[in-house]
């Protein structure tokens, strides 16, 4: 019996239905009768001919137990239906129902912060300092030990809900109580916030052999929710040593937990060291992407592992898969000394980009942060990184209007990066407009920019420029000062209303600058059936 993922919501989208459907098909291929439980009428999983039986029922423990009593399945698959299904694992086990794949005990060990931390310490795998706390006083103690900035978030919730980066003591209490309210009765996690390069992997394991189909490198730095980050496969900047360490750590975590099936691990890389941010002992939202672009039938292998077939028998070894973009089917060894380029010379790049629905949600602040806001995702795939980026940006709705200014208003931390982005834009003939702080920085770097007033400085100001239709693209990164943020949020919101692309992360802007050439010459991008890129 395969449990579905319920209604589509931010953080749990169509990707999980994809895994459920493939899970059912894989079970059928192995000769099992596979039934599905789900209550979402929009999906393929609830098509009456997808499984051998469809129970259109709510995914609560009571309802699922009733169906189990009726069907008496040999086991229940909870790995594919997102947090909805995995949350039922313990209850099913308590009722004596066999949970297939990774055991409920191992799931709890991955999801319970204290247990998980202890395991990582035993394995000697680094993670950001911090721990689970149950009171504000305790949160203060932890913060004193590890120092600001810290990441405050509730445990056991989806999509980074009520997750915040806290820079000083003044706001710790506010965000602590928000995190506490988001999941009452559960601890709040307080961790050192590390600003670094994020990367993630999805692994398939049978408890012995662990296959990593590919490493995805996030384009936005840590602090942007993984679901809202652009990500590229294969990595473009991670060194061989870092990739080797990610692969090594992933294999050891899978073995220590006794994973049978799929698991997702997120890392942040600081000073050439990958730290484990989070582990999800289930299929993640990146499984369909990686399955398609690495040509590894991930769900099928995971189902095999759950049903007792070894990956070794299927011809796989532990380690990083060399097929897909890397062009060498089979597990490959990574030379620790190698840089990303010598590691790959890949056949293609695949860039995943988020898509938002801010147009429909009035009064929602569109800047990116630790809380997930996107409703969907798309993929840009091409032979070169620039053209893949271009496709991802275009497909996610980011475009330049044919004329007007590119407006840059960035916070102090991003000013340095803004200079190089502005240089590329100016070199391509774009006109730059910026507000005071950014303008001064650009001027000091001898980059021509037109200064525009902030709203509070009088008029005509930036808002007037936007409304007059003279803005082609907005690059506006959120700062920390509340007063400035109120204005910035208003500017971003107006861009959404006026359908002007608004980039709120400096890393996305850098990616955009990187793809500028293709925006001018779209014919540089190829257009092929996706499996031909893999050839």
């Amino acid at each position, binding site marked *: 019996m395969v449990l579905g993922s319920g209604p589509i919501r931010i953080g749990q989208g169509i990707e999980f239905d994809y895994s459920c459907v493939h899970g059912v098909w894989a079970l059928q291929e192995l000769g099992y009768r596979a039934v599905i439980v789900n209550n979402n009428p929009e999906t393929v999983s609830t098509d*009456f001919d997808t499984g051998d039986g469809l129970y*259109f029922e709510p995914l609560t423990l009571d309802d699922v137990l009733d169906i189990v009593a*009726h069907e008496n399945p040999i086991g229940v698959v909870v790995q594919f239906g997102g947090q909805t299904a995995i949350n039922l694992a313990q209850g099913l086990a308590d009722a004596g129902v066999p949970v297939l794949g990774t055991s409920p005990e191992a799931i709890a060990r991955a999801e319970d912060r204290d247990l998980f931390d202890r395991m990582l310490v035993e394995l000697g795998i680094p993670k950001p300092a911090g721990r689970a706390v149950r009171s504000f006083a305790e949160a203060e103690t932890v913060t004193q030990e590890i120092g600001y900035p810290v990441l405050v978030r509730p445990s056991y919730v989806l999509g980074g809900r009520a997750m915040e980066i806290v820079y000083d003591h003044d706001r710790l209490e506010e965000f602590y109580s928000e995190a506490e309210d988001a999941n009452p009765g559960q601890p709040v996690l307080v961790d050192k916030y590390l600003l670094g390069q994020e990367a993630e992997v999805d692994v398939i394991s049978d408890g012995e052999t662990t296959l990593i189909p590919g490493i995805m490198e996030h384009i936005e730095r840590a602090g942007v929710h993984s679901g809202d980050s652009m990500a590229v496969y294969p990595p473009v900047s991670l060194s061989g040593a870092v990739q080797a360490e990610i692969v090594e750590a992933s294999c050891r975590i899978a073995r220590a937990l006794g994973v049978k099936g799929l698991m997702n691990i997120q890392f942040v890389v600081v000073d050439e060291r990958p730290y484990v941010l989070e582990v999800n002992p289930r299929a993640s939202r990146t499984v369909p992407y990686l399955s398609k672009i690495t040509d590894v039938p991930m769900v099928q292998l995971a189902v095999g592992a759950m049903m007792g077939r070894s990956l070794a028998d299927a011809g796989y070894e532990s380690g990083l898969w060399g097929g897909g973009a890397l062009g060498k089917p089979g597990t490959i060894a990574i030379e620790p000394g190698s840089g990303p380029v010598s590691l790959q010379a890949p056949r293609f790049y695949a860039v995943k980009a988020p898509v938002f629905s801010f147009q429909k949600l009035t009064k929602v602040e569109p800047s990116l942060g630790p809380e997930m806001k996107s409703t969907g995702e798309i993929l840009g795939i091409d032979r070169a990184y620039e053209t893949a980026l271009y496709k991802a940006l275009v497909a996610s709705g980011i475009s330049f209007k044919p004329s007007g200014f590119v407006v840059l208003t960035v916070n102090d931390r991003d000013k340095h990066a803004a200079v190089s982005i502005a240089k590329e834009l100016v070199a391509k003939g774009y006109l730059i407009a910026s507000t005071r702080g950014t303008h001064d920085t650009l001027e000091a770097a001898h980059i021509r920019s037109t200064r525009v007033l902030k709203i509070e400085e009088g008029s005509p100001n930036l808002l007037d420029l936007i409304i007059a239709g003279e803005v082609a693209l907005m690059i506006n990164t959120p700062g920390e000062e509340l007063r400035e943020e109120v204005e910035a949020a208003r500017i971003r919101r107006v861009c959404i209303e006026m359908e002007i692309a608004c980039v709120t992360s400096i890393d996305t802007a850098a990616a955009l600058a990187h793809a500028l050439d293709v925006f001018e010459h779209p014919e540089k991008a190829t257009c092929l059936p996706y499996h031909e890129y893999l050839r």
Partner: protein
Amino acid sequence: METILVIGSGPIVIGQAAEFDYAGTQACKALREEGYRVALINSNPATIMTDRETADVVYIEPLNVDFCERVIARERPDGLLPTLGGQTGLNLATQLANGGVLDKYGVRLLGTPLSAIQQAEDREQFRRLMREIKEPVPESWIIESPDQLEAILDTVPYPCIIRPAYTLGGTGGGIAEDRETLWETGLKGLQLSMRSQIMIERSLLGWKEVEYEVMRDSKGNCITICNMENFDPMGVHTGDSIVVAPSQTLSDIEYHMLRTASLKIIRALGIEGGCNVQLAVNPNGFDYYVIEVNPRVSRSSALASKATGYPIARVSAKIAVGRTLDEIENQVTGTTKACFEPALDYCVVKIPRWPFDKFPNADRSLFTQMKATGEVMAIDRSFEAALMKAVRGLEIRQKDLKHPKYESMDDDGLRRAIAKPTDERLWAVAEGLRRGWGVEEVNRLSKVDKWFLQKISHLVGIERRLVEAGKLRGEGEDLSSLIAEAFLIGYPSASIRRLLGVESDDSPFGQVAKAEIERQKIMPVFKMVDTCAGEFESQTPYFYGTFETEDDALELRKAT
């Protein structure tokens, strides 16, 4: 003809969710069954339709004219099926046709002709057609410039509704109570519309909203798949409304009047495939207005497919390549044809899932612009039981009709909450009934039909008795018959325990009550969704649970 190009709907956005993967996957399968080679373009790889097993050749490329033209140039398809990729697919197909790309490569548009699509989507053409066939449409104004908008500010009856043409899920629409709001919302709508076109329409706030899913083939055979009624009266986007299928509050005369109108409209337009007709019905009389027509597969048709078992996208795809309803097999029964209208012997309730748990500062009010990201559906033998199932399937904090926010709200606040559509209005309505305001008063405030309110009253009544029995610790009415009644109406054991207040109560009363809940707990039987209410033999393993005696699932398993 050999190759057919299918355009997908791209990423999941509010207004376009997984339903188009469901539709596209069915369509690809249906076309391949008919012997065609299917080429597919979609930018969203997290879909079954972009699997290499679903289509013959799959392009994961941006959905714009540039890339579509390159795919066409490379694949040289003979036909293009435009009506299965939502508004995105339809808009792209229209752009390709109007830009001459289809003519250049000799690609034929399949299914509903483009002229019919334009006639359905262009308000003025649509109204002209409705006047010709004498179907009533609410008085309205088509506006294509700020000047035109300014000219009508004083003639329009307020409140009025603003609907931009050619956008997703009603983006940019709204309700204007006064000329200032009309001016602002109207300007925004002009900008968002692909055609720079908006419609200002007399408001029918408070009327019943009813939809008919209808199907027509190239020979003119027409059937109704099912009808659906919105719990929320007119004024709330149907994607944001609680929906029930089949309609529950229409009289037989009304049902057939609206069915006849829908079939007349699909014939007049010359649709070939599935189509959705939205109508407004006067709750106090027999008059109605035609609101709009979706000449394509939609979220509503996905819901109707799941609610009836009738695969609308599959049949639409077959119709597009020339098959007729009397030829296409009904896969569910295996014995009947696709021209049989489905019959329902159960009640279906859909509740949308909104993202406000993630965006606590967002504006929660609901109107003509859709805000939900997804939805749940529940099937049972009564509206009450289906509603309770849908509520607990939402995976929000509320597992039944109690909501602390409304329980603690003062009367004035609650009246406003009942009157104003939001994602939480169901719980406000229940609280009003809980306070004994009565069906009349809650209907006056919310305009929700009294039939729905009576059903919710029924549920709240059981709830009140459970709470009372918990307080009296078994001294009042007979606990075991009350628990049995609660089960039958759709309260799961967890809710009964919670309402009796015995969840973590190990006193003698708590133990007795919990033991009684376990003893009374009826195991559900599982009934089949067979498209024909048991009239014909059917072997489809599509089930819903209910508390009855005859178990279709068991019988099917024995038979096979």
